[in-house]
């Protein structure tokens, strides 16, 4: 009896020692081949000049030709993330607090933007923001703009508008789900001692959804840094975003070295965000906060 039991245990022990790894194998292989391998390969290639020799030549060329674009990318990413986070919070809090028809309407209409790809947004913004486009003509009709010197939007202004148009609804969508779980009794308690709406927002809602805000900001930052279509279609003047330069290096020069070096610059921009996101999710999974 005793020996039988111990044998059974042994068998189970052998199988259960292997089983987790077997179960993990497909997922790990998938990640290794489709994510880790290209990542490592692109980093190696960014140091490779004409086949074999390793040097920093690609990086010095990338810096010499595209430093303004790298700085521009950082500017756009930071500004775009901050602005869309602030507006996203405002929209989400409005929808959470207001019970009006308008709030629900705004909420559902803004969701549309989440499902439209950037290429559509780009095409839309191209005709909307053009020098004689819809916006300028409208402003000219009410006498704000002179069509002979219209507002130029095909630069950082238009780019930020495009990003905001798409990212604000996305952020508010993420935040709203966090806001919905906050019990109304907190808000009622605050109001009963005289808190105004801004107090409720600043001191109750925002502190309670801070983790969600950070995650939304991280995701938005990474999206902005990596988007190609919107700057490609919208920004005509130099500087432009690094993704456009990467495409330019590959399309016109078949120069994967500098393109990969620029890619690594984007990885570096996204890395702090990724680390933050990972730590956050691991902490949440383990400690539950």
């Amino acid at each position, binding site marked *: 009896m005793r020996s039988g039991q111990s044998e059974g245990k042994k068998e189970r022990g052998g199988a259960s020692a292997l089983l987790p790894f077997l179960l993990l194998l497909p997922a790990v292989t998938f990640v290794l081949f489709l994510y880790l391998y290209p990542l490592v390969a692109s980093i190696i290639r960014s140091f490779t000049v004409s086949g074999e020799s390793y040097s920093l030549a690609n990086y010095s060329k990338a810096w010499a030709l595209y430093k303004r674009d790298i700085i521009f990318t950082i500017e756009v990413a930071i500004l775009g993330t901050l602005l869309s986070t602030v507006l996203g919070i405002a929209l989400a809090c409005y929808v959470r607090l207001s019970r009006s028809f308008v709030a629900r309407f705004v909420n559902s209409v803004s969701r549309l933007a989440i499902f439209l790809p950037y290429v559509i947004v780009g095409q839309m913004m191209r005709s909307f923001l*053009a020098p004689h486009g819809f916006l300028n003509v409208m402003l000219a009709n009410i006498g704000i703009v002179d069509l002979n010197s219209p507002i130029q939007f095909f630069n950082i202004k238009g780019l930020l508008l495009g990003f905001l148009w798409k990212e604000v609804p996305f952020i508010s969508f993420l935040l709203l789900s966090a806001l919905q779980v906050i019990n109304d009794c907190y808000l009622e308690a605050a109001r009963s001692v005289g808190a105004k709406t801004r107090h409720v927002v600043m001191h109750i809602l925002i502190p309670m959804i801070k983790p969600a805000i950070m995650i939304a900001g991280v995701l938005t930052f990474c999206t902005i840094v990596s988007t190609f279509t919107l700057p490609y279609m919208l920004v*005509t003047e130099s500087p432009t975003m690094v993704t456009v330069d990467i495409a330019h290096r590959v399309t016109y020069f078949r120069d994967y070295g500098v393109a990969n070096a620029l890619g690594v610059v984007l990885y570096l921009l996204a890395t702090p965000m990724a680390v933050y996101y990972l730590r956050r999710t691991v902490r949440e999974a383990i400690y539950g906060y």
Partner: protein
Amino acid sequence: MKRCILGIGLMVFIALVGLAASGKVTLLYMTAGDINMLALAQNVLGPMFSERYPEVELRTVHTGPGDAGSQLIFEKLRAEKLSGKETWDVDVAMVHQIFMSWAMAEGDLLLQYAQDLSTWQYVTSPHAKYALGTPVEGYVMPMFHSQVAIAYNPKYVPEPPRSYEELVEWVKAHPGKFGYNGIKGGMSGVAFVVGWVYWKTGKYEKYAITGPYDEAEVASWEPIFKELKEFNKYVTITAGNVGTLDALNRGEIWMGPVWVDMFYTFMLTGKMDPNIRLVLPEPGLPGQPMYFVIPKKAKNIEWAKKFVEFVTSPEIQAKVIVEKYNWYPGIDGTYIKDYVSPEAYARLYRDITPEELRTKGLSFALSKYHTAILEAYEKWTIGG
């Protein structure tokens, strides 16, 4: 890159398997270029060819616009060569000029076939002999020629500039009314910049035809590109090839370089003010043909030749290339006159005569100079 090739390999495989079942001859046609090149093959040339030869069906694989599209075709053919297979998948391909410099340098990729075609006699273009300085005679048949020209709105520009000098003066007098798309948004802007270099240096022959490549030349360009930087202060940079056309149509700009074929296609589809005209200023602007090539070990060489012959015949050149797509014909324009409608012929040659096209329709620069021009622009005109 590798994934792209894999994807294309898969498409080729599916195309072949699909047709093996039907018992017809499958002619596998791989085309670079914009999406209109795919539509041209699938909706126009393929059905027309099958109508004439019912035993053949054209299967088209599209690899995408720009040099990158041609590059995928190059990689595919090179992979077939390295594999040591007896017959290769691709029967016939449509490529840009730059492809020829890669393919001829690699060697053993292409068949010398053009002289065997009955339509070879109609080909007079210098582009059929040299592609960006690489000798290609016999390896290519031009399907069409597209040309960049300056479009202008006669309402605001009654006397268009006839040379780059006049253009620069005009631009300084009318700030913001000349627009082009820089070099990152399509080739019409690139063509304008290349034309600028030809004008300023006067070395078109060396840069585009004879070579050789000379580093010292590139170093001497700094003042030229600084002047272009100064010039750019007076221009509107538009969002791409289409951006220039749209801006012209909306009246935001009064003048700008455009692809002639895109320009007429816009006009025919009602997207362009019909009053806008074209001019080709001295010393000229670059244009480029696209070529048919046949891989050396193509499976259906004879059918591939028949297909190229079919498309380069005066009739198809007139009806499809000129009337439908507004390109200049790949063969000499004089041979198509009997087949093309007088309106289409007049439209194509109204503003820019065949003589002008011969003298001022230039080539893009040799590939090393071309790269150097683009990088010089990035370094001295938009950088630093």
